[in-house]
Every structure is written in C-alpha cells, then in structure tokens.
C-alpha cells in the first residue's frame, strides 16, 4: 500500500461511495471541466480572446443580447465554435466507443484505433474519396460517414468473430488480429494513394493522421446525427456490459439477452467510430486513456463509466486540439500525432502493469 496522500484518500473515499452518490459528483465535476476547457479553447488561437469576451461573443448569438465586437463574434462563432463542437462530438464518440469495445471484449486494452477498427473506417473513407469520383462522378452526399460506418462495422465484426470462441475472448488473438487487419488496411490505403490525384492525396494524408482542422458548421451538423443518437442509446447497454464483464455464460445466467447486447454494442461502436473517422480521421488512444483513467478513479460500473467517458473524452480532445493548433503556430500539428505521443506510452504502461498483475 502506498502512503495515502489526502488527494488519494479523497479519491478512495469517492470510489467506495454508493453509485447514486458517485454519479452526481463525478458527472458534475467532469461537466465543469468540460465547460472550462471549452471556454479556454475558444479564446486560444492566432487571435487570443480573453474568457470574458468569449462569453460576450457566445451570448451575442442569442437574440436580444448586446452585440459583441464583430471580430470576436466572427472568430468565436464561425471559426472556433464549430471546431469545438466537432471536437466534443468526436472526443466523446471515441471515448465511449473505447468503453463499449472494452466492455464487449471484456478487456481494457481494446481501443478502436489500436485494434484496427478505425483503420477499417479510414480505408472505407479512402475508397470513397478515391473511387467515388471514378464510379459516380463525384463523392456522393453522406457517402463518407456511411462508408466509414460500414468499414468500421466490418472491422469490428471480423475482430469479434476471430477473437471469440465459446463466449471467451482471447485478448492475444484480438490484438494480433487487429494488427494484421490494420496492416492489410494500410496496404490498401497505400495502393489507393497511387490511384489518387494531388487533392485526394492530401485528403488521404489528412485522414490517416487525424485532425479537426477544416471544421465547419456543415461538417459538425453532419456528424451530430450519428453520434448524438448513439449517446442517447448507450445507457441502455450499461447493465448488460456490467454483467458481461463476468463472462457471456454468467451474463446469461443473470438474465441478460447477451446476443442483443453484443450486437447493439458493435453497432454503436461502428456508428460513432465511423462518424468520427469520417469527420476527423484516425485519432488514436482517446478510447483507451479516458475509460482506463475513469475506471481507476471512479469505478468500473458502466452506468457511471459511459456518461463519464463521454464528458472526459470531449474535454480531452478539445484540450489536445487547443494544444495541437497553438504549439507550432501558425502551423498546426495533426491531433492524431499528439494523442499518439501521449497515448502510446500510456498503453505500454498499462500493458506492463497488467504483466505485473495489477491489471485494472
């Protein structure tokens, strides 16, 4: 046992509280964090805007509010707000997808990007970008998110089928199968890049690195109808995933419709990862950092873990995006690079921790 610092003791006290007491504390705290990160993020950029003026600019969007300086309103409302909202949607979607996948595979190492699910979505998006104009003359409306959804669905199903035998999921098979699938998808992406013109090549590059640049209200509006309904459905899976963490047979003994829970989880992951990849490319490790941190600090119960993942995932991605677009200003670092720099060591640490038997 480590010597308990006051902060450590406080968290331990929170952890052992009953769920109904933990929910408001944790979700309230994370919501405050989300608002704070969002306000700071809206002020950061080529033109720095203090938080007070950010709030004035936001308020000016509502009828009857006093007008803000036109420059502020333009930057905040037209440039940074859509990007912020897209970041929140994608971050929440990826973190919740990670949580769902880990619940489905009963293993904390499953992350959409690591096991090749995001790559499947990106490959499908690449096919749409490169082959769309050849087949249809243009990239059809909504073809990108729908294509990414299909790619993601196929990848998740494939992974589930090869890694699960008799209701037991082999983590080694899952990770290695994901590696093989990812390598195959990258190979096809490489092949597609030879068929691409200059603009398509730039698009593909964007997809493979992950970025929130080029966010518009239109893009945000195209992603929201995928991610928000999935978020609304996610609480219905919480009890099922809790029971499933004991094993499929045990979940059945507890009265769960196991096959339905699994199918719903796979579908929601495909919808959210598909939409996220279509809008922002491959952004890895959000789905592993967020749920893992929350499980250790606030518990593994999915009734709290799922909504908490959504809030922390949104805050984390917006925070990372703010950093990525200011640290090398006036250029921008692709956010996927940043999350990998933070996430890959985190993943290794997690892996080594499990080896020592502390697996959480």
């Amino acid at each position: 046992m480590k010597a308990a610092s006051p902060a450590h003791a406080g968290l331990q006290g929170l952890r052992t509280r009953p769920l109904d007491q933990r929910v408001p504390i944790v979700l309230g705290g994370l919501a405050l964090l989300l608002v704070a990160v969002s306000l700071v993020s809206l002020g950061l950029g080529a033109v720095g805007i203090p938080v007070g003026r950010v709030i004035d600019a936001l308020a000016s969007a509502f009828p009857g509010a006093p007008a803000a300086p036109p420059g502020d309103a333009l930057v905040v409302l037209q440039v940074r707000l859509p990007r912020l909202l897209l970041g929140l949607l994608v971050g929440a979607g990826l973190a919740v997808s990670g949580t769902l996948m880990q619940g489905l595979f009963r293993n904390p190492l499953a992350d959409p990007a690591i096991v090749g699910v995001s790559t499947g979505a990106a490959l499908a998006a690449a096919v749409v970008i490169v082959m769309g104009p050849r087949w249809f003359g243009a990239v059809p409306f909504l073809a990108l998110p729908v294509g990414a959804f299909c790619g993601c669905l196929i990848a998740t199903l494939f992974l589930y089928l090869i890694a699960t035998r008799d209701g037991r999921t082999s983590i080694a098979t899952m990770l290695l199968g994901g590696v093989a699938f990812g390598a195959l998808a990258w190979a096809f992406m490489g092949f597609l890049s030879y068929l691409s013109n200059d603009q398509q090549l730039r698009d593909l590059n964007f997809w493979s690195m992950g970025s929130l640049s080029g966010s518009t209200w239109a893009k945000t509006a195209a992603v929201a109808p995928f991610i928000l309904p999935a978020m609304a459905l996610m609480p219905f899976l919480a009890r099922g995933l809790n029971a499933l963490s004991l094993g499929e047979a045990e979940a059945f003994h507890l009265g769960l419709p196991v096959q339905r829970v699994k199918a719903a989880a796979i579908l929601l992951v495909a919808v959210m990862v598909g939409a996220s990849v279509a809008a922002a490319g491959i952004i890895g490790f959000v789905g592993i950092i967020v749920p893992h941190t929350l499980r250790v600090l606030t518990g593994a119960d999915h009734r709290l873990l799922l909504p908490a993942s959504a809030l922390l995932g949104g805050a984390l991605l917006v925070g990372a995006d703010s950093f990525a677009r200011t640290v090398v200003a006036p250029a921008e670092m692709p956010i996927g690079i940043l999350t990998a720099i933070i996430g890959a060591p985190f993943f290794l640490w997690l892996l080594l921790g499990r080896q020592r038997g502390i697996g959480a």
Partner: protein
Amino acid sequence: MMPALEARDLTYELGGRALVDGIDLAIGKGRFTVIVGPNGAGKSTLLRLLCGELAPTRGEVAVGGQSLRRIGAWRLAHMRAVMPQAAELNFPFLVSEVVSLGVDGIGRGLTRADRAGLVRQALDRADVAHLAARYYQTLSGGERQRVHFARVVAQLAAGRSVESQQILFLDEPIASLDLRHQLAVIEEAKALAGAGVTVVAVLHDLLLAASASDDLVLLRAGRLVARGPAEDVLTHARLAEVFGVALTSPVLPTQPWAAIPAAGGSAQRL
C-alpha cells in the same frame, strides 16, 4: 408431486461424441443433489445443460414441469442462479459491486434499500463482508469463489419475490476453498435446500458429497450409472469400477469434519 427439475433423454454431442448421453433424471423440490464421477464423465456439461446454458442435442430439460426452451433468459434468471467454476474479471470492480450484479438486473422491481440489504446479507452468508470494499482482482482464488457464492445467493434472494420455486446450480463451488470454508459453503447450500431451494452441485470430494447430499448422481462417460442416497450409490463395487479406488474402511464415513464453534459460545459464523 411435480419434480422441480427434470431431464428426459438429455443428450449433448460435440464433434460426434456424446458428452452427455441419454440421461433421465427427476429432482424433487428442496433436495440437495450432488453430481459425482471421474474426470471427463460429463458432470459440468450436465450441469450446464440443466441450467439452460447449453442447448441439448436431443431430449429436454423441464423446470417445474415447463420446458426450458419456453422460458426466456430473463424469467429463468428469477428461477435459478448458477455459480461458475471460475469467472475472471478484467475490470476493477469492488467485491460489493460484483455481488450487486446478482440483484442489479432481476432486482429492478425492488427498492434501492432492499437491494442493498440483499447484498449485505449475501456478503455475510458467504463470509466476505469484510472484503466488501476490496478490489475483486486482489482476492485469492478461494475468496473469489466465496464472492461468487454471495452473488448467486443475492440473485436467488432477489428472484424469490417473483418465483417461489428456485434452483441453485453450483459447479465445483468449493474447489479452491480451505476446509473450513468448504464446510461453510456446503452448510449454507444445505440451509437453502432446507428453505425449499432445489440445489444441484458438482463436487469432486466424494466424502463431502456423500455427507452433504440428499442424493448422489453418479456419471461415467456421459451416462448415468446410479442415483440415490450416497450409501446406495457409492458401493465398494462401484468405487472400484468407476473411480478405480478401494475404500479402506468397511463403510463410507459420514461427516468426516465438523466446524468448531467459536470461543464466544455461539456457533462460529464463517
């Protein structure tokens, strides 16, 4: 009287081999039945068929006269609980949370306070109340088994408000337990049987099985060899034939062990 649990021509084939072969069985309400047999006899497979986890290749299982095929998972969870041999858990759940899983689903009709009460009682009955705030992953194998025993006890208690006829299935529930806790779990299971719960267990320890059970079911190579009271089933001839062992005493010793009462005077609560 209608048997609480009935198997008719129950058969389960895997890869062309019958793991359970044409078993007929009727178990009365509140009986404590123990399935015994050498390794590979099909004990666990039979248990998994009886509790509905596996669908039989041929034949059927009936609970309270109703075919298992016609009972959905949700209703079935009110009628029976199943304690697995081992369940690994990769997420950091507290012991109290693992036990709560038994009542979170089917106990939805109860109040939150009732559910918490059932969990507390179950933690007590399995002697894991002192571990309630520990992480499940930090427990020993035996402690984990007791936690799962608490979980199924809680599930039965939650289901009791809906279904009066209940069955408890235990798959080698005491394999990793020390002697004292083996006796304690057996005693709790017997107490449940005394309260009308039909108990079906797979046990390896023949002496314990003989002393604890109302009936033994002896299997060999997927077939039913004998069933009935221990002294009728475990004869010298059968022990030699099925297990390849000889009993060193003329009769089967009954009750080889007894828990020692605590110093405080009252019987020790394990």
